């Protein structure tokens, strides 16, 4: 295919040190108006101009040493884009894969997300959103290197071939590194031809990670590992209740701790700045703080759930409807009704939150594992009294993100700037595990009330669901995306479920309470709770209709036509690979769930047993259709990981509140899956050839309902509340 290249969106820069640099200038999309232009020439009144960023929009640099340096517009947090995005470039470029080096891009407008308009990583979007841009970068460089070689060889470009980092024509051959300088002086082509999928040599092939060595020998640098001369470590004592404020504090004992350098008040609490973590912690322990706890001091999980349950029985904002489900259900001879609920969840990434700040004259440098460079840059500038362009964001490796490091409130970043500013010192603000667990921005708790009636042949005649839970977007810079009282993330995977496409009477309603708990997207966002409720309830309906759960789902998906086809295909693949009809060992049960999210379709069959009130998940067979795919090795890893993440939540994850305080604190009371609980996971990729979808998140939503449905099959007990608890 020929991909026309819009010259207005593209620019080439000759690197100061020689070599070919491929850069793009991408106009900022207007979807999120907060993304701000950089004005490197002019600072705020009286402030010195912002320092120009080095090669502010380079995506690819080919050095005279043959190195192929790819800059990532997105953050590597485990999902494998450190390898996948360079694969896109390398496929078109035709370079020697062993010469590829990778680095995170700085925060700059050129690296804005092609769909979001801000520099960000999330929503399982990195590969599909860069699928064309990164391939075009590679293709452009290839064309220019070929043109340079053709000129040098005295042949036509059509006579040249690219082979593993060399341009070859007949017996003549030149390495990319030898051609880079000459290529950089040539006019860029107006269009590039991208390879057909059938000609791919790298894309679609299992490819090992480029960040593996650094991550097994301890040399990989995460945000928490940043160090430089003069850097201090700070811990912040935050209010035990969300929204609480410092009334007064006595720092006498804290200041007396050896190694403590400063104790400062910041908007979020009191910070103790010290030579090292241990002194900062001792200093913080020695603080005496009186808090004004505010209205959240009475927050209580049990009360909150009772309130949600009551709301679920009342009419909410309508998110989707067809026919007249309420009337149909009112007149039905029998209605199946169920309540599903899920708790608040912490992300609990292995690397606790942290952020390092160095303020200078008209400059601010930030080192932090962030998924949200643009918003952080804008927020930091505001706190530091600078222009966004004067804020440099260094993105080290992220020790897990899962959504927590993409916070529209920029909590852990701006807090660190406040500390550095108040202390007048460069600081690394570090969160302990307890701080991280209790720091908020949780997956919102939800209650779902579901009702449905079946007609004579066991088809769903009417279906109504009411969801109750906080909006993630409300109160953020993204609040404009809430339409008619509906935050689409609250009902995603439910309002648009293909199961309902062929149901004549259907209605999805939403209540959006505001109990004041800071909430945030958590791996797969609304799909986590909505798939749990939908897949559990569909299973209940299958049993009510006296049908096999797979046969019941197949019928619904077939009735949905093209809307159900890809779900149907992954369902069939997972069921076949599992051996759905094969007998299981005594006491074992099997359960199925299939769900679409982030442009990909996933089916999972779980095999479980239950003994002494404990669930053991033995095996999970998963089929995923993520469209045209890049790295099967990563897809397998991401699906395994997504299952582990969802299983942790299903088996034991919950954040609860008593007297406004978070009850859980660390991994002993917020347990996550350990290796001895790890099921055997099989991943099958269904190659639909459709446009690329996401891979990081779609594996999470089906696992909790697949396990719940398997528990029902094994024990006859229908568990509708997470984490799983067995009644006496």
């Amino acid at each position, binding site marked *: 295919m020929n991909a026309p290249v819009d010259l207005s969106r593209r620019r080439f820069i000759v690197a100061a040190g020689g070599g070919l640099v491929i850069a793009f200038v991408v106009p900022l999309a207007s979807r999120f108006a907060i993304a701000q232009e950089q004005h490197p020439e002019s600072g705020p009144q009286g402030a010195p101009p912002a320092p120009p960023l080095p090669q502010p929009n380079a995506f690819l640099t080919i050095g005279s040493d043959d190195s192929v340096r790819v800059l990532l517009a997105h953050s590597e947090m485990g999902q494998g884009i450190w390898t996948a995005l360079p694969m896109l470039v390398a496929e078109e470029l035709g370079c020697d894969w062993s010469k590829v080096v990778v680095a995170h891009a700085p925060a700059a407008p050129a690296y804005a997300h092609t769909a979001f308009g801000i520099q960000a990583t999330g929503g399982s979007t990195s590969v599909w959103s860069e699928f064309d841009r990164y391939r075009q970068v590679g293709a452009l460089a290839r064309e220019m290197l070929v043109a340079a070689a053709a000129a040098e060889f005295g042949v036509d470009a059509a006579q040249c071939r690219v082979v593993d980092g060399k341009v070859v024509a007949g017996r003549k051959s030149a390495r990319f590194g030898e051609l880079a300088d000459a290529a950089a002086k040539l006019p860029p082509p107006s269009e590039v031809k991208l390879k057909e999928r059938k000609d791919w040599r790298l894309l679609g092939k299992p490819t*090992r990670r480029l960040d593996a060595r650094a991550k097994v020998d301890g040399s990989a640098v995460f945000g928490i590992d940043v160090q430089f001369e003069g850097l201090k470590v700070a811990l912040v004592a935050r209010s035990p209740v969300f929204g609480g404020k410092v009334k007064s504090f006595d720092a006498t004992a804290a200041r007396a701790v050896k190694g403590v350098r400063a104790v400062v008040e910041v908007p979020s609490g009191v910070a103790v700045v010290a030579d090292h973590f*241990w002194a900062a912690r001792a200093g913080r322990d020695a603080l005496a703080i009186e808090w004004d706890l505010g209205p959240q001091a009475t927050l209580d999980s049990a009360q909150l759930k009772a309130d949600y349950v009551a709301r679920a029985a009342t009419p909410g904002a309508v998110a989707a409807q067809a026919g007249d489900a309420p009337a149909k259900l009112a007149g039905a001879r029998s209605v199946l009704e169920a309540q599903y609920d899920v708790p608040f969840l912490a992300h609990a990434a292995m690397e606790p939150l942290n952020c390092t700040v160095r303020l200078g004259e008209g400059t601010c440098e930030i080192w932090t594992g962030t998924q949200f460079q643009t918003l952080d840059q804008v927020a930091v500038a505001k706190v530091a009294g600078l222009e966004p362009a004067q804020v440099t964001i260094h993105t080290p490796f992220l020790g897990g993100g899962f959504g927590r490091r993409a916070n529209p409130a920029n909590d852990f970043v701006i807090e660190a700037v406040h500390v550095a500013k108040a202390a007048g010192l460069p600081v690394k603000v570090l969160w302990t*595990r307890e701080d991280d667990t209790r720091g908020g921005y949780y997956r919102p708790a939800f209650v779902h009330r579901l009702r449905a009636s079946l007609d004579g042949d066991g088809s769903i005649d009417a279906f109504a669901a009411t969801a109750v839970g906080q909006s993630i977007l409300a109160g953020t810079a993204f609040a404009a995306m809430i339409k008619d009282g509906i935050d689409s993330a609250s009902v995603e995977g439910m309002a648009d479920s293909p199961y309902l496409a062929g149901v004549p009477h259907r209605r999805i309603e939403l209540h959006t309470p505001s109990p004041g708990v800071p909430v945030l997207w958590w791996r797969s966002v609304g799909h986590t709770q909505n798939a749990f409720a939908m897949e559990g309830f569909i299973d209940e309906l299958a049993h009510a209709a006296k049908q096999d759960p797979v046969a019941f789902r197949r019928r619904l998906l077939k009735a949905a036509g093209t809307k159900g086809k890809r779900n149907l295909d992954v369902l069939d693949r997972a069921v076949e690979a599992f051996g759905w009809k094969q007998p299981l060992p005594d006491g074992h049960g099997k359960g199925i769930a299939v769900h679409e999210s982030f442009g990909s379709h996933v089916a999972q069959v779980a095999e479980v047993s239950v003994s002494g009130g404990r669930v053991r998940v033995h095996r999970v067979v998963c089929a995923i259709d993520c469209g045209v795919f890049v790295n099967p090795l990563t897809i397998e890893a991401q699906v395994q990981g997504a299952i582990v993440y969802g299983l942790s939540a299903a088996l034991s994850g919950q954040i609860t509140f008593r007297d406004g305080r978070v009850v859980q604190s660390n991994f002993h009371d917020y347990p996550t899956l350990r*290796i001895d609980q790890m099921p055997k*996971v099989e991943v099958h990729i269904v190659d639909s050839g459709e446009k690329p979808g996401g891979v990081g998140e779609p594996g999470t939503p089906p696992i909790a309902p697949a396990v719940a449905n398997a528990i029902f099959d094994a024990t006859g007990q229908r568990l509708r509340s997470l984490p799983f608890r067995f009644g006496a």
Partner: protein
Amino acid sequence: MKLTINGKDHEIDAPPDMPLLWVLRDLLGMTGTKFGCGLAQCGACTVHLNGAPVRACVTPAAAASSGTISTIEAMAADPVGRIVQQAWIEADVVQCGYCQSGQVMAATALLRENARPTDAEIDAAMSGNLCRCGTYQRVRGAIHLAAGKLSKEDAA
């Protein structure tokens, strides 16, 4: 106090209760050993003390001063650690990578004691090392791979 780390002696000025983890990270700048929980719950800070895996976050530096300490930074030169790292790369284990120093340290200690561990023995030895990315299946695979490589080396 004096600490022997990766074959090198260090003179340290630290409070007596300061855990080895923070001596390594904040006083010596050896950041390969990670902070995850501070309660010996996650294993991210696993180091070897006299060859045995310990959690550096709850091991006072003073308690380690009479022994020899090895960290992830020394594993490339360790005959077993080197094989474990190689197996980890071949099995494409890592994701975010934050817990992997601890995983490699725990696996190295296991393989020194037990050259051919079963899945159950792997689970028992590695259950103290959390991974939120969920790399467990590949961790098991990589340990078997490393065991195979080690037995081949022994035979050679």
